[in-house]
């Protein structure tokens, strides 16, 4: 458990999208998509947190809320104790631009992460112009070349002159990473940043990110649907993995704990979904009653996983489980499941059948 003040603190964050009315949209029913619901999470200096879940679970929305790209409809996002959205409105001690610069992003798709009409050099000048407007072009180029070498793109002077279409997918992501790092951020949101790369290139990219994390002393919020990548990344970065389901965090803990000893049935599902080269370890039966994720417009009552959970009982429909610290483990690990409570009516109620 860390003692210092968190870098970024999400408290009970809620993001509900609404098909909001336009200029003439008087007749629309507001349909509310509950993308994120009641998530609390602290991210510390030089921390690594991975959010894992299937598509549509709200992990990207949560990530964007964390870096101030998406305004939460409830709860708060605090950067070093200052509410990000209050700062944005100018009601805080820290100027918003400082927070803005401190929180950066790397996107999933290498194809669209760089402006096709600008050369690498001009793409990388943007963050320097934002943070160091006084710097001369030559100084900027010096930094750019030096960072390009550092991310393995040598000769840097050659790469700097290229357009994005002259780079491979892995190289594009390195430029995107460099762009984020040149802002000298405190945290980078890596939104499926390696998912579009070939499997064999992913480790390389993760190693690079971790290597630069130490040098730039930044934190990572790593979003992935792949538990083994999340494990690799967080284990090396001494961080945590959070399992996310339908807008809620269902389990958070250290990587070895979450992957080897998952407590929430959904984390178990994620583990099942992760391919394993050890064929004997790979279980054949699906630990899930339904394949498709429910519509976030109308999420299930009680525990949201009860419609698919193999362990679900009547009680799961009625009541929402609260985060429960795992017993007999001396590290910070919790799960929101009634099976963690010793004397819950869950144990007496009827198993759900379809």
């Amino acid at each position, binding site marked *: 458990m860390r003692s210092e003040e968190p870098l970024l603190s999400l408290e009970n964050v809620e993001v509900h999208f609404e098909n909001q009315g336009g200029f003439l949209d008087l007749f629309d029913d507001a349909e509310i998509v509950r993308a994120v619901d009641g998530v609390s999470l602290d991210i510390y200096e030089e921390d690594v947190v991975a959010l894992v879940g299937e598509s549509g679970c709200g992990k990207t929305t949560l990530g964007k809320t964390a870096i101030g790209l998406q305004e939460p409809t409830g709860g708060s996002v605090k950067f070093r104790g200052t509410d990000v959205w209050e700062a944005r409105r100018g009601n805080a001690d820290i100027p918003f631009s400082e927070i803005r610069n401190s929180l950066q992003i790397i996107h999933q798709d290498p194809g669209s992460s760089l402006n096709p009409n600008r050369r690498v050099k001009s793409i990388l000048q943007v963050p320097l112009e934002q943070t160091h407007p006084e710097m001369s*072009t030559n100084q900027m180029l010096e930094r750019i*070349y030096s960072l390009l070498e550092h991310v393995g793109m040598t000769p840097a002077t050659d790469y700097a002159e290229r357009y994005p279409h002259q780079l491979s997918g892995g190289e594009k992501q390195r430029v995107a990473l460099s762009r984020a790092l040149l802002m*000298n951020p405190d945290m980078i949101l890596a939104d499926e940043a390696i998912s579009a790369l070939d499997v064999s290139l992913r480790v390389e990219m993760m190693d690079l990110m971790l290597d630069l994390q130490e040098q*730039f002393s930044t934190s990572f919020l790593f979003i992935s649907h792949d538990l083994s990548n999340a494990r690799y990344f967080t284990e090396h970065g001494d961080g945590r993995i959070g399992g996310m389901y339908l807008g809620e965090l269902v389990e958070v803990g250290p990587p070895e704990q979450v992957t080897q000893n998952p407590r929430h049935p959904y984390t178990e599902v994620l583990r099942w979904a992760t391919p394993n080269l050890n064929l004997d370890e790979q279980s054949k039966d699906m630990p899930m009653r339904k394949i498709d994720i429910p519509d976030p417009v109308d999420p299930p009552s009680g525990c949201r996983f009860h419609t698919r959970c193999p362990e679900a009982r009547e009680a799961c429909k009625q009541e929402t489980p609260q985060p429960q610290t795992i017993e007999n483990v001396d590290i910070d690990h919790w799960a929101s499941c009634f099976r963690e409570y010793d004397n819950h009516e869950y144990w007496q109620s009827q198993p759900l059948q379809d």
Partner: protein
Amino acid sequence: MKHSETDSQDGLEWTYDASQEVGMTRREKLREYYEEYLYKPGLVAWSDWRTRIGYAIVGLYLLFAVIAQFNLYRPPEASQEMPMLQAFQEGSAILGSNTIGQDILSLMIHATPEMLIMIVSGAVFAIVIAVLVGTFAGFKGGRVDSALMFAADVGMSIPGLPLVLVLTSTLRPTNPAIIGIIITINYWAGLSRAIRAQTLSIRENSYVEASRVMGVSTPRIMFKDIIPNLMPYITVNFVNACRAVIFFSVGLYYLGFLPYTNANWGVVLNNAYTQGAILGGSYVWLMAPIVMIMLLSLGLILIAQGMDRVFNPRVRTRLAGESESVEGDAEEGEVDTFGGAM
């Protein structure tokens, strides 16, 4: 590792050892700008036969304009020749003359400068408004978008020609630049809708979000991240707007709803049609303005067809002999040259 780094107060200090490579003089910068913005686009434009012909045609009109402007060819005057001369008979009036003895060739040449001013001012007006409205609406979204698009819908619903006729017949404009602007008074509306749609799809690219996260200002994002990627579309529509101005203005002069001017292709067309070119058999008198209109329009279409290549970095790097694209030869996105044409 060639570089070294030390922590300074802002956490980073980078030096790149091969600093002589980094240094750039003003002269080198100018040279780079020349290469980037003049030499390479020119190379690309010239590499395509369509644009080459297109530029040659438009260049011819510019030449006419220069000739007229500096009076290198006599201006049209009544009775400068025998009336109703047939073409190719007198050396002094190759294209013959009209009923009042004006040299037809002179009429054609001296109509060019005003025409070009009209075309450029009208097209620039239409495109600037359309791009500003379209990109801003598309980028901002929400209520701003709805309001601007409602305005565009209303603008689109007003029929162009009748509106222009009402305006010109009451305002009686004489300045060619103003005539051009009146002609494209609601041209922006339909175009801004199309540009908004393009902007929406460009906005989806994550580099736009990355710029926002870096705190880049909205105008900068629009001018650096969005508009450059719209350029192929914008140039094509600029050319289409030019053509619209030609069509409309000649039509208006032909109908006589613009203040009479001595030398205009539309006026000549009307005179030829009504004053007996058809009956008198002076086909050149009638055909000359028609050819002038068609040729300019054709030249502009040809330029438009090759224009999207100029803004395509793939084509640019390939022709400039830089390294090939890495990810195979993905097809070069062709812009629909005729989208929004009339």
